């Protein structure tokens, strides 16, 4: 019968649980959900990874294509991230153009990539002003159960680690390009961004790594992205106000995640 109670009075249901210091899924307020990572499983992509944070699942696939650099940045390549929240992943989304949430998350991930400098765009340039790599980084969310950014960032790291680009030779005289598939090189990762999402329940309780249910019931959700113990970006789109001390505490909390994720990626790549 708890099922019925939950749908009829979700807030009350949660309040009763949280007053006992426990979340309905059995976690404590500051426990993460387990993270799973699987890399290189998609052969049609140049680099790929699937990350699961609890139920939340995000697939990241990277396709590399060739193009001409922009005139105002002749020695830079491109990274084009896009996060899809297809109707497949939750009943919240409808077919058609990307939802507002998908657009916001896409922008956030683009920001994380630029701010963290994890990829140096100059590494992607092949011949100045003539030829550069363009990495299409596409995220597809398969299961939308809260803290999607966290999963997306983990999958991004996994996918970037597996990207191997072939050797390209460019003949400026003939303007001809040749690609050698036999010689492939990985790209260099300059930093490791790690994101942690928090939710604020009724302006008081801060829940770490919330599920979708928690995100929708809570009065505020915010995401902290760290880059090797440095603050890289904080995303707090409105919601209930947060005391500065609280935020600092959360930043400290999220630092705990960095070693977890770096060891996760290391072990995944090894196996």
């Amino acid at each position: 019968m708890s099922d019925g109670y939950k749908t009829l009075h979700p807030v009350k249901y949660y309040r009763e649980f949280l007053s006992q210091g426990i979340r309905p899924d059995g976690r404590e307020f500051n426990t993460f959900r387990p993270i799973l990572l699987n890399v290189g499983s998609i052969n049609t992509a140049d680099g790929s990874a699937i990350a699961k944070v609890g139920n939340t699942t995000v697939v990241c696939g990277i396709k590399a294509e060739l193009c001409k650099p922009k005139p105002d940045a002749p020695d830079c390549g491109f990274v084009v991230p896009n996060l899809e929240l297809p109707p497949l992943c939750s009943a919240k989304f409808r077919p058609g153009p990307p939802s507002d949430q998908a657009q916001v998350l896409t922008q956030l991930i683009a920001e994380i990539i630029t701010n963290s400098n994890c990829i140096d765009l100059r590494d992607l340039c092949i011949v100045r002003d003539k030829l550069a790599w363009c990495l299409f980084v596409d995220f597809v969310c398969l299961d939308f159960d809260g803290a999607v950014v966290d999963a997306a960032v983990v999958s991004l790291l996994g996918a970037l680690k597996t990207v191997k680009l072939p050797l390209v030779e460019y003949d400026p005289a003939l303007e001809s390009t040749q690609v050698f598939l036999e010689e492939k090189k990985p790209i260099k990762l300059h930093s490791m961004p790690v994101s942690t999402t928090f939710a604020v329940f009724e302006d008081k309780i801060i829940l770490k790594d919330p599920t979708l249910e928690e995100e929708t019931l809570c009065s505020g959700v915010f995401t902290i992205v760290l880059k090797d113990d440095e603050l890289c970006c904080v995303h707090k789109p409105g919601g209930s106000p947060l005391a500065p001390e609280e935020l600092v505490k959360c930043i400290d909390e999220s630092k705990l995640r960095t070693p977890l994720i770096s060891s996760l990626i290391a072990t995944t790549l090894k196996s």
Partner: protein
Amino acid sequence: MPVDHKRINGPEDTVPYSLYTKTNKQSLTEQYEEIRKTGQRTDSRAFSEHRKIFVRTGAVSQAKGSAYIELDNTKVIVSVFDPREIPNRPDYSLKGELYCEFKFAPFSCHKRRLHVQDAEEKQHSAIMKRALESTVCLHEFPNFQVDVYATVLENDGSCLSAAITAAGLALAHAGVPMYDIITSVTMGIQRDTFFVDPTVTEQNICLYPRPSESDTEHGIVVLSKLHTHDQVSQFYQFGNVSLDKLNESISILDETCRELVPIVQKYLVKHVVKNLQRNT
């Protein structure tokens, strides 16, 4: 093309690097000749052999029902949602509707796919809808539609039939009333070779006629079957095939569809048993 302001667009003229690789790979015709000569498919399967199927039901926790299917490298995920009101349809209808959406993930194919549904994806959606419509008891939910979404994560051939089989599983998983279990198989035809459950390379071989003296038949056939009632719910073909060869392909596909049924059944029983154990 209008600019898509809701996504991040890359530079305008990007080209896949595979266009500039040296063509030291065999051409498709050569590959076909080799397969014909050796009588061995590239993955050393028999011509009438289906790839191993791996299925996981309940892959999407947010959906009412879902299934993830793998045919070696082909990976498709399907989710099914609760009935909802049919948008823009105020009149009363005795039957419910199915809405199917088939989508390739941008990185799922050799060539990068765009985010907006293209003609092929729309066609596949229509075929999927067609195949599932005769499976689902539509009269059980008048005025409502059940949404079925399929996303191909990696396409290594036969993704449409994989999606249909998975959708059948996902519908059963969602507890949507169904008349039957549905299985679907693809076949590629090139001259006198029938490739059951072709890979992408084999599909490409069958896409165009290969130069030959007389026999120029080629094509792709997809057949979906309802098991208990022995009914074909969907049949789709293109290429250039004679009637006799087509009939032959129907009987082979029919047989292969039947072979898949126990596998689908196994996964469904597994799901039921798991639920039973959880409930008790």
